[in-house]
Each structure stands twice: as C-alpha cells, then as structure tokens.
C-alpha cells in the first residue's frame, strides 16, 4: 500500500529510490529494510513490535469496532460501549430510519455522486488545457487554481452563504438545492494540479498520431488522453469522494431547512433529539461511515499514493 515503486503518479521521492523497485526482499524482509531495523525473527524486539502494533490497532482502529457494536446493541450508551454488541438488534437502525436518516443519506449520495462527476469533468478539462496547450496567462491560471485550495469553505463561509442565496447575474437561489453544495465543489485545485502533472507525462507522439488522423480536441481528450489517465483519475476520484463526503460547513450553510442536510450534518440532529439514545446516533454514524469505508477499502492504493504524491509535490 505504501510502495511508491508502483506509484502511478510518479512520486518524486528524495534520495535514490533504487532499492524499492529492485524486487528484493519482498518475502523476507532484511534487517536493513526499515529505519529502526526491525527483525523478523522471534525475539524481544519482535515481541515489542507486535505489542506496539496491537497498541496502534487498539488506538486507531478499535474505536470503529465499538461504534459498530454500539449501533447494533439494544441499549447502547456511552457507558455500555464494548467490542461485541449486547443483545444484537436492528432497532437502532429502524429508529434512525424513522427520523429520516435514509433521506439524509440520499442527499449525501446525490451530492457525492453529482459533485464528484462535476469535479472530475471540470478538473479534467482544465488540466487538459493546462497540460497540453500553451497560451498566454497560463501561469496566472495555474496560480488561480492553486489559490482555490487556500480558500476553504471555512474562511469564506459567510459571504459564500450570501452568494448561494443569490447567485450574481443569474440571480438564482441555490439554498435548499443540492446544487448549492455541488457547484462550489466543482473547481478543486488539488485535482487540477494532480491531473495536469499526470497529463504532462503522456508522450505527445500518441497525440500527434491521432491528430494526423484528424481527431478533434474533444475526442482526443475523451478517447486518447483520458484512457491513459486512468490511474490519476482514480486518485482524484477517491480523494475527491472522501473530501466531498467529509464536507460539513458547506451543506450546513447551503441548506434551507434541516431536511436538506447531508447525513454527516444530520448526525447532530439525532444527537440533540432527546427521545433517541446513543445507539441511534451510532447507527447514523455507521450509515455515514460505510460509503467512505467501501471506497477506501476498494481503492486504498490510489488514495495512499495520491496523498504521498500530493504531499511531495506540495
């Protein structure tokens, strides 16, 4: 998972990455494979490592087990959390369903699906122009897209909510519609950077050959460049999905009333509802957690290489 040797995004790791691709020691880790020189043979250091690994798992992964078990427990509360559900039941999910959790979940799915599609389309188009064309003002445009990363929703929340209530020129009110969340997520600097870098590495010969055959720009992008970009699109897709699913403030300010909330924002409604217990909140949390979990487990390699690549590029 963290092997940059198979990195599709070309991580420019410092120092020489000679060894990693040499194929040596995949099955039998040598003593010099790790910085701490962990040994693979049973011994005190080995035992210590196992102990520490268990500790890490306990701290970072075990809490997830407790929320899963709590969501299936008949009477879950903060004081009865454990790793196995007491009296397993689906009651919590049914109550959460009565409180409209599936409607919120539906909102989330529409926003995540639509937002991701728009984001990928918009960023691919922009990246294609930046990577494959030369034009006046290119550096400025690149800087502008970088700036979008420095303008997170938190910092522009108040004026953004005014803009969403009355979009200039067209004068539409996007509040209470999914567009209010989807459209602001369209231009994501990170994806633009990532795809631009990747497209720059595609050899121009392929394109030139296609151009001689009379292929137009759009078909060139769709049929020649995009298929070659699949790894980068995978990275942009996973990171984009996680980022959109994690949105909190944007759905909050784009909503007209609580029925417009996404499932992550709606958790606070469940929590403040005096008639439902912690088990129902946990059921909601599990429902909000599962999609990102699935995406992560299916595409974790893309995600991890993407983070590493994004970071090293900075």
């Amino acid at each position, binding site marked *: *998972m*963290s*092997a*940059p040797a198979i990195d599709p995004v070309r991580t420019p790791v*410092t*120092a020489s*990455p*000679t060894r*990693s691709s040499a194929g040596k020691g995949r099955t039998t*880790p040598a003593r*010099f*494979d790790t*910085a*701490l020189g962990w040994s693979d043979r049973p011994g005190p250091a080995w035992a210590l490592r196992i102990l*520490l690994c268990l500790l*890490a*798992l306990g701290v*970072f992964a075990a*809490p*997830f087990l407790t*929320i899963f078990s709590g969501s299936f427990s008949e009477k879950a*509360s*903060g*004081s009865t959390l454990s790793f196995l559900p007491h009296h397993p039941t689906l009651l919590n999910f049914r109550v959460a369903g009565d409180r409209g959790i599936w409607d919120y979940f539906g909102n989330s799915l529409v926003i995540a699906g639509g937002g991701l599609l728009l984001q990928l389309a918009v960023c691919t188009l*922009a990246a*294609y*122009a930046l990577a494959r*064309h030369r*034009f*006046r003002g290119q*550096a400025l445009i690149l800087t*502008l897209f970088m700036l*979008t990363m*420095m303008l*997170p929703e*938190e910092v*522009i*929340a*108040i*004026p953004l*909510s005014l*803009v969403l209530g009355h979009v*200039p020129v067209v004068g539409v009110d996007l509040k209470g519609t999914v567009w209010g969340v989807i*459209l602001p997520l*369209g*231009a994501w600097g990170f994806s633009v950077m990532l795809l631009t870098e990747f497209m720059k590495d595609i050899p121009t010969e392929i394109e030139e050959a296609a151009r001689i055959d009379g292929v137009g*720009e759009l078909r060139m992008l769709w049929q020649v460049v995009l298929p070659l970009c699949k790894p980068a699109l995978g990275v942009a897709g996973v990171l984009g999905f996680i980022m959109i699913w994690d949105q*909190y403030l944007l759905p909050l300010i784009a909503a007209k009333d609580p029925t417009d909330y996404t499932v992550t924002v709606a*958790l*606070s409604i469940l929590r403040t509802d005096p008639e439902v217990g*912690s088990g129902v*909140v946990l059921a909601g*949390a599990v429902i*909000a957690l599962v999609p990102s*979990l699935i995406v*992560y487990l299916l595409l*974790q390699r893309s995600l991890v290489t993407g*983070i*590493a690549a994004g970071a*090293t590029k900075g």
Partner: protein
Amino acid sequence: MTATATTPGPRRARIIGKKAVLPWLFLAPGLLLALVFKFLPMGKGVWLSFFEVRPFLGDKWVGLDNYTRVLTDHRFQDAIGHTLLLGVGMSLGGIVVGSALALLLEGQARSLKIIRTAVFLPVVTATAVVGEMWRLMYYPTSDGLINSGLGLLGLGPVPYLDNPDTALWATMAMGIWMLAPYNMVIILAGLAGVDRSLYEAAAMDGVSLRQRLRHITLPAIRPALGIVLTLAAIRGLRVFTEVYVLTGGGPAGSTDVWMTRAYTLGFTRNDIGGASAASVVLLCVTLLLTVTVNYLRKRGDVR
C-alpha cells in the same frame, strides 16, 4: 513560469485564432465555478468587512470598526489563544505520533500492510462521524470507554468535554488521532526513499540506532516533515468542524476557536460585518503563512 513563450511569425499568426480560444473553452467551467464560488465570496467578504450589514436598511460604511471590534473582543482574543494552542498541539502531536507510526509500521510484510490499512481509517472517516465517536468514548462516567481504561490504571473518571480545563486538550487528542495516520503515509513515502545500503554501511561501521536515525533517516524524510508541518499548521488555523461537532465551542467558550467564533457571530448573531472581518483576518494570516513557508522552502531548496 515561461509557459507563455510565443514564437512570433506568420505561420503562427495564421492558426492563432482557433488555437488561442481552445484552451479557454476547456478552462471556462473551472474558472467560472472558482470565480463565482471562491473568489467572488472572498471579494464580498473583504467588502462586507468594512460595513455594518443591515438587512432592509442598507449597509453602512464603518471603515475599520469591525476589525477593531473583533480584535478587541475578549472572546475572540481567547479564541486566538485556543486556535494557536490547538493548531500547534495538533501539528506537533500529529507529527510525533505519525512518525512513530511510520517507523513502527514500515515494511513490506503483508501483515504490516493490513495494520496500516486499519490504522489509516480515521483519515477517511468524515469529521462529523469521528466527533460522534469520540463524544461517546469521552463519556464522563467511570464506565465510559476511555474512563474505564483510566480506571484500570487506578485513575478517576475525567469529565473530558464538560470541564473547561480539559475540553481543549480532549479536542486536541481527537485532532491528533485524525491527523497522525495521514502524516504516517507521507512520512512512509519519505522513508521508502531512503537508500538501504546506507543503513547497511552504517551497521558495518557500528553506528548506533540513534545516530542512524539522526544522520540517515531524518535528512531523508526532512522534506516530508516540512510538508506535513505546513499542511498541519494551515489546517490548524482554520480548524472548525472538529471543534464544532465535538464541543460546539463550549463549555463556557473554553474550546472556542477563531472560526467557531466567527460562525457564531455571523450565523447566530447575524453580525455579518464582524464575522467577515474575522474571516478576512484569518485569510490574511493563512496566506501570509503559506507564502512565508513557500519562500523558506524555495530558499532551502536552492541552498
């Protein structure tokens, strides 16, 4: 960047019409969205920060009043302290824990990969979900998850989130928990780039583990650490969701950070001008920090 280097000539000029418009067509959707939903709000925010915003009555120009009001408000001043403490604590804690995780979980073995996958879960989980999870783990009575762990060690139950003295630290712990695995991945990428023969050579020379870490590993992962620190610092400044879902700024404002304060001012007290001023201050600090760090890094690269 010298991407705009055009070669003037008759042949070029002939095709420039179509060629020059094309990239802009591709860029148009992205630029339009960025303009309307990022730069326009930014401009509007700066503009509104000089006004007393009054619905139906028309906005009134007040100059820098909003800024002085926000900066002299003691709750905002407290929030600065909390933001800095939280930002620094989360950044440093995230790096220390992240490095420790990376050093522990470095390797090619299949079992290690599985552990890394599991440890990485907090990063892919939505912040709001993490908040609900931790709220329950922090359950204040002695049979809450964390408190029962403390009970095993013979320590009394701590009402983490309900006590103004501990709430900020509890929030910080959650922040570190979310940040550390992310840092781990970046540092692991740095570790993977270390030339293994150096380790071998060092072992031949009888170099101690500590020296090896200091002189071989650290220089190799320093760029990764730099990036991690920058990202964390910027993220720390605009921390909002973590605090908002976990404590909402309470109890008694003890976890109020700059953005939760601005949010309260703007959305519940309807002081759009003051909230805009607060946002602009944060924006300026973020930009300043980014530019400074980039400058320092560029200078470091040259050297």
